């Protein structure tokens, strides 16, 4: 059945047909994987060629993460075969995968912050001199590798002092050290700044030249087109399409991903501008925020743009009382309010959807129902106890309104896909019936379909005369959904741009974010 010679013939045949110059390094065939409640991978096939970047794209829950885990030996497929260099292999655990030449840079970096660069690079694979670690040799090799990858750093530096871009390079370096010939990068740009992304692309080019193949998993279509040679689209655990990047268009890609074509990624509706809802005056936080003052109006989405670390999230956390501040007043409907903890903010009808969904927004092992009522535990009571039937009724309504895909209300929220988890967080806050909604990176890491549903929620809110503050690092989103944009840099407001002015464009916002002035 699985005669390796036959496999090679088949591959060569296909290479000739499609004109592929590069030989195949790894091939997954008819992979099927079952998880409790779902078929995560359904007859999925995937081929990676040497020295190329292969983009893997699909909505959340499409099975990308599971496929990565098959590559890395974390999950074993229930059906299907894996070939490396034409030979069938069994990646029964992460060690076997590593030995077979597969490396992986996860979205959440596995860097031990307290250790230095060398210790992280050589973790568990120390170079030895007799029974002891040969630090002299390791430091030398570490600085060579970091230099080669375009991030020259002192290998003695503690990793907590390094930026995320450098830390990610250390992860890549780990793969190089284990002689990886295939490196998987899972959402590698999600927490990088623009310049760090550029550096990453340079590093990727260099890896390609060395003949290393890369599987590039990303949500950002622009990046996929910028750096990939081939693109494979997945949907519902199934293979949908594979084609060279030249033959793919953005529209085609999106329609493959969602299974239908999307007319408009940003269904923005303009609502009438209402009264001033929120006014922030002279907000200060030493070393973080510098005299932040702005107003937000009912019926409007106020966007906050800027580079990573510009102080947007910090501003929101300070307003909401999540972090202490060193000065500044907050007025709601022209009345001064005292907010020193999140409970005060919620009492004043504010809601805060945080950027870190799993760490700050949800209780993963608790049920969908309990998460939906997390911010309203005290409200619906029957005497001293909770009004369970009312809770369930509201929960059912939430599921219908936000199209949350969950088997039951009692399912742990951690088992849902990212987009559905985000809808639960949104439901939690809308249930508080707040007037001012802070959405911090509301569509980070969720699929296109769920993104559009989040935008519809924002439209609904402003139509009802609510006020929305949206922090986003994606410029198209800022331009697509905001009525007004505040651009921040180094904890200071650089510019305020209305939707109907000439500066409301990508170039001018970037210019302000980099410290330029708008004429």
């Amino acid at each position: 059945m699985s005669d390796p010679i036959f496999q090679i013939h088949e591959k060569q045949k296909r290479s000739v047909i499609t004109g592929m110059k590069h030989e195949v390094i790894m091939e997954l065939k008819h992979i099927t994987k079952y998880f409790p409640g779902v078929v995560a991978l359904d007859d999925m096939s995937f081929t990676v060629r040497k020295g190329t970047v292969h983009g893997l794209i699909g909505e959340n829950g499409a099975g990308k993460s599971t496929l990565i885990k098959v590559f890395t030996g974390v999950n074993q497929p229930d059906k299907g075969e894996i070939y490396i260099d034409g030979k069938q292999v069994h990646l029964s655990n992460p060690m076997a995968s590593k030995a077979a030449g597969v490396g992986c840079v996860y979205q959440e970096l596995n860097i031990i912050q307290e250790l230095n660069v060398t210790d992280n690079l050589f973790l568990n694979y120390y170079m030895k001199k007799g029974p002891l670690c040969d630090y002299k040799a390791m430091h030398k090799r570490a600085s060579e590798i970091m230099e080669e990858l375009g991030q020259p750093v002192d290998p003695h530096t503690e990793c907590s002092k390094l930026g995320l871009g450098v830390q990610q390079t250390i992860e890549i370096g780990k793969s190089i050290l284990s002689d990886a010939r295939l490196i998987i990068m899972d959402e590698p740009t999600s927490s990088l700044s623009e310049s760090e992304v550029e550096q990453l692309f340079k590093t990727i080019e260099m890896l390609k030249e060395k003949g290393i193949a890369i599987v590039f998993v990303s949500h950002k279509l622009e990046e996929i087109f910028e750096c990939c040679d081939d693109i494979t689209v997945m949907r519902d655990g199934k293979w949908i399409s594979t084609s060279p990047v030249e033959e793919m268009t953005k529209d085609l890609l999106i329609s493959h991903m969602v299974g239908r074509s999307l007319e408009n990624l940003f269904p923005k509706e303009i609502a009438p501008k209402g009264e001033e809802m929120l006014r922030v005056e002279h907000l200060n936080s030493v070393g973080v925020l510098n005299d932040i003052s702005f107003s937000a109006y009912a019926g409007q989405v106020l966007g906050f743009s800027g580079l990573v670390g510009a102080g947007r999230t910090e501003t929101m956390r300070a307003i909401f009382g999540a972090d202490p501040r060193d000065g500044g007043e907050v007025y709601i409907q022209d009345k001064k309010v005292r907010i020193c903890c999140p409970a005060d903010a919620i009492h004043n009808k504010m809601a805060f959807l945080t950027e870190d969904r799993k760490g700050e927004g949800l209780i993963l092992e608790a049920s969908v129902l309990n998460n939906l009522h997390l911010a309203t535990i005290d409200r619906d009571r029957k005497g001293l106890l909770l009004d369970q039937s009312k809770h369930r009724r509201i929960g059912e309504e939430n599921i219908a309104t936000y199209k949350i895909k969950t088997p039951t209300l009692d399912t742990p929220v951690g088992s849902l896909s990212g987009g559905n988890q985000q809808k639960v967080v949104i439901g939690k806050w809308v249930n508080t019936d707040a007037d001012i909604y802070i959405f911090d990176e509301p569509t980070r890491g969720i699929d296109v379909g769920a993104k559009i549903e989040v935008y519809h929620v924002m439209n609904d809110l402003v139509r009802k005369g609510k006020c929305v503050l949206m922090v986003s690092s994606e410029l198209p989103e800022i331009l697509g959904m905001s009525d007004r944009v505040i651009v921040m840099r180094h904890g200071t407001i650089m510019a305020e741009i209305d939707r109907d002015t000439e500066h409301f464009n990508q170039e001018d916002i970037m210019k302000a974010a980099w410290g330029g002035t708008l004429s």
Partner: protein
Amino acid sequence: MTEQKTAPKLKDAISKLGPLLALALICIGLGIATKGNFFSSTNVFNLLRQVPIVALMSVGMLCVILLGGIDLSAGSLLAISTGVTAVLMKKFFTADTVFNAVILIVICLVVGTVAGMLNGLLLTKLHLPHPFIATLGTKNMYRGITLVIMGSASIAGFPKGTLVIGTAEPFGIPLSFILTMVVFVLMHVFLSNSPIGRKIYSFGGNAEAARLAGINTDRVQVICYSLSGFFCALAGVVYIGRLNSAVPLASQEGDLDAIASCIIGGASFLGGKGNVWGTLIGAFMITVIRNGCNLMGVSSDLQLIVIGAIIIVAVFVDVVRSRMEANAKRLAVAKASAAA
């Protein structure tokens, strides 16, 4: 539809009955080993008298463990609340009146609650990094204070009314056991169905998400540590009744027994997971093993080894069971998709 709903419920029941089954097996084993002595009515009633102290301390400990915390001072809390009560009794309330009896019980409960609250305040106001530290400190302090004020000697001579909870046996059933059952039912409702109960589970599941959802997390923590203190003091009232005196070195192993009961009963050390009925079974398990060992004349040194092993085995069984459940679910999907 109905089938789908009942099937998980049945499974739930079975998985909940698992620990109960283990308890039954241990009882039967001890019954055989002691040639039936274990099941003699005298011994069964002995058990019902022995369970309440461990069980009451465990239910307080459960509140703290659900937070992801720990209360190492539980045994000392029992000692200090009974100790202070005994000293005040000697000074002011020696007369055998109902009023004195009631006031002493109230004093005991108040002292325990306040001492427990202090644990919570140390944690939340001084921002000590982990409850392990705060309660390790107070564990020693409370025990020391107890020894000092009692002059390192036990104190007897309580009014009869104070002893009632630990001694009365209406219809032949120990009052302390009835009280324990009532407490467990109330705590079940409190934890699963009251706003504070929900907040406790939420805090244990993700403290930061709970805080940002407007939950006053400091208050929730202080409440839980106070509850632990309260239930240790209630156990103390039973203790006074059973011994007819307060002992400064009482319940030295109490905190570890209470923690063990919660863990055996399936509570997660990381917080957010656990329930009162599991804890009750855990408390029974520890009491039954102690009792059985005593019947068989096993030395207290060996008992330590047995209890330690039981804790490890119980948690291991739980780990294996949840792995098997996950696997079974996975195979069910494979079957369903193959059929489709």
